[in-house]
């Protein structure tokens, strides 16, 4: 089966008069239909920049790209405005962390969903509103007919996030990009939205990329997990392998420093230091300054992402030594 999405050696650099930021430094991965890839990373790791690149949402005049992003075989980095307009919303849709700012506050939810449906399918207004109502039902918003007339501020955070999922799925996309969609939600609401995304993903056979900083959330939704650090994927593996036997020292540190059940009284294995400044292209392994296994070879040249097992890629020259 061919891939829904192929990202190859993606580099994204932001250039302003004061400063250059190398946000993404060679990211490659594939995604199949019906598969969920979780991208896990801390702030500044390049996870959101990678995700937004798939829709080319970065300011054009300040962004330098190289590499390739193919959606169903079409090269996104070569698309003109018209092709991009058709890509966004219709083939690839995105949901954001803060639904309050993703919706326009002066139009009703129904208006905004119907507008999108009309733009992409050419349906009449009445048909578009009918579709909007179906969509609100699909994301289990109670009394959907009334909610169509609600403004974003009249809904709770959880309802707004459901409405945004409805908007995202309004044109039957094949790829859904989720940028920390449950981070701003309360715990009891977060799990509802996660389950909803999982269900809709199965129902519509969606490819999903789910960006999060929360390991628990990534484990709940993902088939595979990619861990990003300093603009690179440092480890990519099936969710069970990633949780049971992470290989990269950063992935291991991240899992060990995440507080969970039964760690009371134990000292946390914190990773010392802080992530690097991305003002310069790294000359060696970006994690080397914080790594307790560091060797001279680590700083000589950047390590490659190498397979260590079935469907398991690790960017570390010491993988065998570390795993032992």
């Amino acid at each position, binding site marked *: 089966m061919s891939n829904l999405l192929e990202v190859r050696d993606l580099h994204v650099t932001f250039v302003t008069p004061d400063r250059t930021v190398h946000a993404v430094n060679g990211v490659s991965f594939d995604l199949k239909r019906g598969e969920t890839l979780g991208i896990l990373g*801390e*702030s500044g790791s390049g996870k959101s920049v990678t995700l937004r690149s798939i829709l080319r949402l970065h300011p054009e005049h300040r962004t330098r790209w190289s590499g390739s992003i193919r959606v169903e075989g079409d090269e996104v980095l070569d698309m003109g405005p018209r092709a991009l307009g058709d890509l966004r919303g219709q083939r690839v849709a995105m949901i954001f962390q803060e639904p309050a700012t993703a919706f326009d506050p002066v139009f009703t939810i129904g208006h905004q969903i119907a507008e999108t449906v009309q733009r992409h399918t050419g349906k009449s207004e009445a048909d578009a509103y009918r579709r909007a109502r179906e969509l609100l039902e699909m994301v289990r918003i109670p009394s959907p007919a009334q909610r169509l007339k609600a403004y974003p501020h009249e809904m*709770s*955070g*959880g*309802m707004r996030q459901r409405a945004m999922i409805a908007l995202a799925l309004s044109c039957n996309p094949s790829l859904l990009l989720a940028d920390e969609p449950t981070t701003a939600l*309360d*715990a*009891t*609401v*977060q*799990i*509802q939205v*996660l*389950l909803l995304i999982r269900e809709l993903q199965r129902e519509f056979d969606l490819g999903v990329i789910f960006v999060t*900083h*929360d*390991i*628990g*959330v990534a*484990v*709940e939704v993902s088939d595979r997990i990619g861990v990003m650090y300093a603009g690179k994927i440092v480890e990519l593996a099936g*969710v*069970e392998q990633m*949780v049971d036997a992470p290989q990269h020292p950063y992935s291991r*540190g*991240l899992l060990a*420093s*995440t*507080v*969970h*059940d039964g*760690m*009371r009284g134990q*000292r*946390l*294995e*914190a*990773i*010392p230091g*802080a*992530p690097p400044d991305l003002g310069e292209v790294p000359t060696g392994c970006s994690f080397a300054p914080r790594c307790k296994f560091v060797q001279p070879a680590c700083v000589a040249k950047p390590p490659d992402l190498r397979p260590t097992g079935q469907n398991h890629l690790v960017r570390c020259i010491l993988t065998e030594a570390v795993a032992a």
Partner: protein
Amino acid sequence: MDSVLPVEDRGGPAQPLLLASGLRKHFPVGGGLLGRGRKVVRAVDDLTLSVAKGETLGVVGESGCGKSTVARLLIRLLKPDRGTMVLDGDPVDEPHGITVNELRRQVQMVFQDSYASLNPRLTIAETLAFAPKAHGLPAAEARDRVRDLLAKVGLEPDTYAERYPHELSGGQRQRVNIARALALRPRLVILDEAVSALDKSVEAQVLNMLVDLKTELSLTYLFISHDLNVVQYLSDRVLVMYLGKIVELGPVEAIYGDPQHPYTQALLSARPSMDPRKRTKEAPIQGDPPNPIDPPSGCRFRTRCPFAEDVCARVEPPLADTGRQEVACHMRVAGSGHSKAVA
């Protein structure tokens, strides 16, 4: 001068460090001309709690449950509508007690937003020396104290003392905020979502540091967070809030090991599973927390509770002692009228 020395323990170890009784804070919102149709957010309603010397009391709950209002009431950033507070035997803001200023010297707070909490125009050293100097510490001694504080929170004094907040990372700024909270040698530190904005690898560093500082300086913590795992990690006792009320309070082992209130149970099982083989199949409760304006009558959780009955709408459940923990649920009170009430 004596106000910059540590305060001695007075009432002995058994006397609570802080005792708050019947605290209430309602915020009027909107409302028409002359207060007609005025609505009220019942942020905190008749809340009683005590903090024992040397413990860490965790406070958990979702947004709008009033946990941050509790913190602000305890340090008097907000004046309670009703209720009293006693700090180690001394009533607060009462004729024979201690003043609010004295309270704030012994009780300090660290906020979530590390950047907004620091004055951008002051260097780290100026920020840390501000309160000790205001309390009469001579400049030379204040300088020594700044160095000492920076070292305590793991920041090299020579490197960081003369920097401005924007020159530090989020984790380093939060360390400065913690240092500032310790500058007057307080007895109780209120940490309101103090690690929530930090990345996991940095959060672990700060949590380790908080554990060390507590032992080194014999501190007591009130740790407020929405992160149930972090609260479990740090706390000795845990208080669970819902819409301005305590729903459950008890030792951390009891709350996490044998939660009694349906809300606590739901909150704990809503945590994402860390095991891909045991994913969550069903959300424990549906819907969002209701608006704290006009909360439901009786038990405030009843609109989302799978066990709600008539009595829950009519009567507000008292906080009842079950032996290990205290729970505000009719099912835990014999003869409450709930069909599942204990015998």
